[in-house]
């Protein structure tokens, strides 16, 4: 009897330690998301530091979500137009991404280094979802994991209609930057 109990205990202990080693989820509730539009007429930029992003180190799954009304602009009128006219944030309060790191084997979350990553997934903005491929960087330094990505978004791809009157002021492609510092 004593023998079986200690064997069972050993198996349990072994499985607990191995699973906790592999099922590593990195979460950041203060992910920064900012976007930048540059035209000869005007530069527009906005940012928020309340986005959430998660990386599952064992599967490479990567997600982030951001609240549209949390974006802060320099000018009040721009913030209003952004929410009311372009993003319709009362109807679509969030933008999100769900995908995975396709070159997961190139990343070692336990070893300090800078790892370029390819991320594929679904980006949902203004209620419209599109398959995207973006490049990013995962950095491990002193055991802390951070991730960054810059990518471009075309407002028209997400049915965001810019009125002709202000067309000159808003770039056809908006640069989006996502930056996360993870607590393991």
């Amino acid at each position: 009897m004593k023998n079986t109990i200690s064997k069972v205990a050993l198996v349990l202990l072994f499985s607990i330690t191995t699973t906790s080693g592999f099922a590593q989820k990195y979460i950041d509730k203060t992910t920064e998301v900012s976007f930048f539009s540059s035209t000869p007429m005007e530069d527009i930029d906005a940012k928020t530091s309340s986005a959430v992003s998660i990386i599952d180190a064992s599967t490479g799954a990567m997600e982030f979500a951001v609240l549209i009304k949390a974006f802060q602009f320099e000018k009040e009128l721009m913030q209003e137009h952004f929410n009311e006219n372009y993003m319709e944030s009362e109807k679509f309060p969030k933008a999100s991404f769900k995908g995975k790191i396709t070159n997961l084997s190139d990343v070692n979350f336990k070893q300090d280094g800078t790892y370029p990553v390819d991320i594929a997934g679904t980006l949902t903005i203004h209620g419209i979802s599109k398959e995207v491929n973006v490049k990013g960087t995962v950095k491990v330094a002193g055991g802390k994991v951070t991730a960054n990505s810059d990518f471009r978004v075309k407002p028209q791809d997400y049915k965001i209609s810019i009125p002709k009157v202000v067309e000159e002021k808003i770039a056809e492609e908006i640069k989006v930057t996502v930056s996360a510092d993870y607590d393991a």
Partner: protein
Amino acid sequence: MKARNYIFILLGLIVMIGLVGIYFYNKPASRVTKEKPLYEIKSEDLFSEYTTDEATANKKYLGKVIEVTGTLLNISSTDEQNQVTLMLKGVDETSGISCKVDLKSNPDVLKLKEGSEISIKGICTGMLMDVVLVNCSVQNS
């Protein structure tokens, strides 16, 4: 009156309208809300409303100024220079109401003690893992 006077008055009005337009166009976005809150609610109740039915909670609170009272779990700095995040208790220590506070408008915020009951007024922007309020200010009860 002579026609010339009418023209001067009209020009004056146009200039005034133009100036008002320029004022609003360039008006900087505020980092703290001065409006009166539409709702006053406990942090646990707000969190519970959002976790029960997010769509209904958004219909009620999204974009609105609300005042939330609850236990301060922690104060953390963000990468943004003049901003801190105050976390009010939702259900447990892991998540709750996340309040973004501008330091310039709220210089005393760093004196707040973790574990104390505080009231925060801000604009509700919805929920991700926490309910997020921006343009917050600490209210004296």
